[in-house]
């Protein structure tokens, strides 16, 4: 990410917006909001790009399917979390929050469980040369199905909040 960038402030943008609300002019506030919205859209788009790539792979590439599906899910999750709670982080620990979707997100508990498992599977696929597909918590086909569902739900969820994704 190139500096200067609003997300490099490493602040919760919802909280930042609240604090700056009384200082910024209406025009500046609108510019701030537009910048955040654009980042939500770009994050969602990045996630979809990873996922489209995963979907196009043949089943022999199960490691890549799982890995790219996970990154698709992670970016989509980041987009939703940024849009709703203003959270954005570049820390490694942020991966632990991949399933921390808002309370009103469809099938929130299903995704919390499945995405946590997908993250563990992704680590095995990327770093463990001894692992076979049967060791995974879900097959690469299931991974695509789970992330496909997440992308569709996130699209609907963000659209109801006027994001053009």
């Amino acid at each position: 990410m190139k500096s200067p960038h609003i997300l490099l402030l490493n602040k919760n943008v919802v909280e930042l917006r609240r604090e700056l609300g009384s200082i910024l002019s209406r025009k500046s506030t609108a510019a701030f909001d537009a910048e955040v919205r654009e980042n939500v859209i770009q994050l969602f788009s990045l996630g979809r790009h990873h996922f489209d790539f995963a979907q196009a792979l043949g089943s022999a590439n199960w490691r890549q399917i799982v890995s790219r599906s996970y990154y698709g899910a992670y970016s989509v999750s980041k987009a939703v979390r940024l849009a709703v709670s203003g959270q954005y982080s570049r820390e490694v620990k942020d991966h632990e929050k991949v399933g921390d979707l808002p309370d009103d997100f469809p099938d929130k508990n299903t995704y919390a469980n499945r995405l946590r498992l997908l993250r563990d599977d992704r680590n095995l696929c990327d770093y463990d040369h001894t692992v076979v597909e049967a060791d995974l918590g879900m097959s690469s086909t299931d991974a695509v199905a789970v992330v496909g569902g997440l992308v569709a739900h996130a699209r609907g969820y963000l659209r109801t909040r006027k994001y053009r994704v």
Partner: protein
Amino acid sequence: MAHDVERHMDDSQLFALKEAFEQQSGLLGIDTELKQRPDGALLVIKVANPTERLFRVLESAREQIVSKSGEELRATLQRTAKSNPLQSAEGRLLLRTLSESLNINRNSFKDDFFARYTKSVSGAEEQITAAANHVVFGRRGAGKSSLLLYGLHTRGNRAHPSAWVDMQVYSQRTDIAVAIDLFLDIMSQVRPSLSTASLADAVVSELRSLKVAQAVDEAMIRRVLPDVRRALGGFTSQGQDLVIFLDDYHVLSRELQPKILALLYAVTRGNGIFLKLSAIETLTQTWDAATKSGLQIPHDVQEIKLDYNLTIPEKATEHLTSILDAHATYCGLSSIRSLCTSTDVLSRLVWVAAGVPRDALSIFGQAMTKASLTGGKRVSVSSINVAASETVNVKLKELDTDASGEAGPLHTLLEKLREFCVKQQRKNAFLIEIRNDDPTFQRVLNLVDLRLLHVINEGISVGEAGRKYLALILDYGFYIGVRAARSVDLFNKQTRKVAYKDLRRLPVFVEDE
């Protein structure tokens, strides 16, 4: 596989997690597998249909165990087809769930009420939540109490005050003092939400004095009504309304029904308080024309009719299937169909239950038990038939309790109808002329409410102009299953839309003197 988990699960936390999941989901003895991965163990719980509810339970159980041990636990649900659905944890939970659903009350299902509730096809839910007086009519088991509970829980979710009275406690009462007990019950339920608590306490004390007085009459009760009205009117000043739900109102003696409603209405009318009643129509009198007292339909109270029956079989099938599917999904099954040997099972269920939801739940539950006992893995048409045959005994008992004063003539008429259908005509369907002044016709309507007869057409002309007939079938329990009668022609057993020409061919029943 469950044994494998217990044997190999050296991590006691994972075993604790499995137990917590079983307890919270109700899926006792669910199949599990412990998967050993390079990064540690993964508990895989094998469910026929892993739903959001089950994932929520798993996440909650996981948090509970993790917070105790501080260890990160890995567990998930996996969709797995069950070779013997009836004996699976999901099938056993469904059996318990169906049993619990038969006697629904204000405490049934608690937080899961809306997940288990199936909306009516007529939009009755919008009416029951509206600010107006309503009486919900329907046969036993039609879903009257469920609809009232929908209203109660909807209000509860919005933190709006309500009072719920199960009228069974006043069954067969003929004394006007029922009104005092009702007001006391209502006051005790709403007092915590009232800002005018001291006024409410004074009214309760006044009512208690009246309750212990000898020979209470209507005039004495009417003297305290202004105080009751003022106390309950406190909700209006708090910017709220109050709804009083009276479940199974018909169990009060018939003469008393309009009198009690008149006393309630004196307190509620124009006071931000609404009445919602459930009752069996032919056993209910809301208005006494002679004394002009009670609640007059539709001026003072609007009707909501839950008359799912066999006049529109496809609607009945759709509704009953939705209700059973809601329970099946709750229990981790993909659908109710997954427990049946063929699609004919649900068609037959709709007919033997005559579109009545509670009968369908009861018969299906019994059919599950019958099928299991004979080694079946799924419910078949014959297990439905046997269960339906046994259900008729329950209905005959209900005839004695619901219509105690008129049980004798109803039994006699029912016997004549059985003779007419099964022995003389060898058909399970018949016609009777619609004559509201005819006691036989009125008794037929009573038998319809008691689900011993079922309407298949509400008005058909046969021959002479101006004469209308009701088309009915005798309850299946009288001639199928253990009571199987030879050569009875079963009318429309495939649950298709009924043709008028077929209805007109049915024999006409006329009661002999």
